């Protein structure tokens, strides 16, 4: 029987440059590979010799969509190396700015990038002709997330206010009160968005993932926690290398991550939700149930619903943080550099973002290693593609191509981050 190749040469509605090749031989998918040709920018090399003070500003530039994730993982790593802990109101403000990034990033993906796949449009703008009300609400939600970033960070992309030890300037009571008003409306929009996406038609497929996420004793995770999995991983973030490894494959400028003993794993909303459902407030759990989700979701196409639930959570959590906020005495805690090693691992919208730095006595970086979420998900993306395409090998190429692109967008892949990180090509043999 014939072999055929289905190719997508330039993936749309993802951040960055990638492609996909799918080979079908004798009615079976024999290979599904994601090629990442995003040009490498060598952040880990250019960070060597730089000061710890500059690090949050530099690493932000790895990703324009999730700069806070990079800034947060970096500041936690610096503080751990220098033996400093940021607590109280400053810690609360870090969770608050992270809420802003999740709201902005998830709302962008749900409404402008992912929902068009389910409703048959090329993009969010075209979708607005038929679903104008939800597109406008989604954009308002995205704007609310950006407003948190603008107030706490100074601007939406590459915020300037984050530093090791805390912030450069604390928000005023009036600024926080204004944010609370915006967030109340955003919470209502997020609930409506959740109900809307819950009504989409989802392909029936369940994947047996190993979920990996942070887990904290009392909170749904942003900045802190142990790295855990549903197959027994439970480690300090500093022990990452004992369990995980990065592999360099020819087709990609993104390094592939794997669990040393088992291979592929999944980070991001599905993993975070499945491992931390019990940390969500009861009203958010109830909404998840209403939206058709159990405490664990293994259908990657339903990740859009999980993202919407996380947006509701981020709005709720931001409102709670603002209501409970007690202004710290200073905008940052003092920091004295010393020689040492620091690790940081925080929950970017797309999953854990792990950093490792070695510092000279004066706080200059000797070596840096950064593992972004999407590079960790590459093996799972390829496995999902093989599984999804495997259920429809006799379908027309165009249908397979569309479903594969949708499968990749389930991950909200951030390719710019991952190159150190896509095109779909289906080959039939």
């Amino acid at each position, binding site marked *: 029987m014939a072999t055929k190749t289905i190719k997508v040469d330039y993936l749309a509605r993802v951040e960055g440059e990638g492609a996909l090749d799918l080979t079908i031989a004798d009615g079976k998918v024999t290979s599904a590979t994601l090629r990442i040709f995003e040009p490498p920018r060598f952040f880990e090399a250019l960070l060597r010799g730089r000061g710890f003070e*500059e690090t949050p500003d530099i690493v932000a530039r790895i990703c324009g969509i999730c700069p806070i994730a990079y800034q947060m993982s970096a500041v936690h790593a610096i503080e751990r190396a220098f033996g400093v802990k940021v607590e109280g109101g400053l810690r609360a403000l870090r969770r608050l700015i992270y809420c802003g990034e999740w709201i902005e990033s998830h709302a962008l993906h749900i409404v402008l990038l992912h929902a068009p796949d389910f409703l048959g449009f090329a*993009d969010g703008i075209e979708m607005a002709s038929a679903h104008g009300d939800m597109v406008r609400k989604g954009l308002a939600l995205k704007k609310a997330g950006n407003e948190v970033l603008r107030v706490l960070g100074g601007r939406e992309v590459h915020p300037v206010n984050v530093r090791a030890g805390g912030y450069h300037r604390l928000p005023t009571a009036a600024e926080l009160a204004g944010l609370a008003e915006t967030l109340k409306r955003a919470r209502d929009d997020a609930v409506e968005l959740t109900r809307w996406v819950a009504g989409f038609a989802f392909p029936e497929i369940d994947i047996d993932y190993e979920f990996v996420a942070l887990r904290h004793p009392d909170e749904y995770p942003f900045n802190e926690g142990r790295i855990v999995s549903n197959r027994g991983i439970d480690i300090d973030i500093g022990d990452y290398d004992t369990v995980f490894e990065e592999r360099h494959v020819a087709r990609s400028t993104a390094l592939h991550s794997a669990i040393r003993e088992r291979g592929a794993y999944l980070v991001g909303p599905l993993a975070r939700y499945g491992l931390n459902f019990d940390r969500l407030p009861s009203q958010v759990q109830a909404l998840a149930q209403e939206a058709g989700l159990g405490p664990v979701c293994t259908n990657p196409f339903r990740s859009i619903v999980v993202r919407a639930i996380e947006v509701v959570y981020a709005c709720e959590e931001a409102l709670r943080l603002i209501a409970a906020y007690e202004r710290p005495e200073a905008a940052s805690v003092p920091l004295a550099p010393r020689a040492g090693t620091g690790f940081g691992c925080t929950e970017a919208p797309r999953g854990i973002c792990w950093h490792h730095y070695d510092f000279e006595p004066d706080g200059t970086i000797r070596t840096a290693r950064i593992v972004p979420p999407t590079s960790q998900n590459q093996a799972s993306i390829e496995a999902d593609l093989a599984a999804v395409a495997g259920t429809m090998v006799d379908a027309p190429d165009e249908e397979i191509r569309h479903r594969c692109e949708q499968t990749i967008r389930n991950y909200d892949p951030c390719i710019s981050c991952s190159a150190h990180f896509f095109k779909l090509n289906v080959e039939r043999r």
Partner: protein
Amino acid sequence: MRQVKRPRLAVWKFASCDGCQLSLLDCEDELLTLAGAVEIANFAEASSAVSEGPYDLSLVEGSITTPHDLERIQEVRAQSKFLVTIGACATAGGIQALRNFADIDDFVAAVYASPEFISTLSTSTPISAHVPVDFELNGCPINKAQLLEVISAFLAGRKPAVASYSVCIECKRRGTPCVMVQGTPCLGPVTHAGCGAICPSYRRGCYGCFGPMETPNMAALAAEWRAIGAAPRDIKRALSTFNAAADAFQKESQAHGD
């Protein structure tokens, strides 16, 4: 009703973080209006509907760092009536231009286990090094109000109203007390305006993400930094970030040691 042909807009990505093209999607209040005024003919990050050129206005993000991109930028130029670079990468090479002053093999080996899989140039260069550019918009990231102004101006056939003075003017306008006089080193006096002087309003010095202003007095600024206690290494580092390969910043940073 008479059918009016809308101008065709394209957005291109080279080596970058996607933050500048995201600024277009961050125009939440204006996005649907903009999409009514122009045909978004090619914007891969936002739409799977991609149509062929030619385009009336191309917005280019990112710098040239691979042999493939050297060819691609020529094609983009050939298809575009106007070409505008958006952001520090496309305008000055971005932070990835730090490779220009280092050994590229060492950079590749520091990140990748199998350097032979990597195809990259030894330099990161701005778009203007390869093709004629009609307008360069500064910023890491660009300011979205300036982006809308540039799009409107090109579509109306006028010059964009984008000031070329320094960040200092923006501080004065918004009434932010000077951080330099309080002893905080600031690149505001030599940095291109456009951000709205955000950093000083957050009680830190400007870090130059909009690149050099039109006629910066770099030596005077460096002397002022020394006078308030900055070490040569601090000056070198401050100028060696997102616009490291911009001429004025590059020359001055080379005048200071580690």
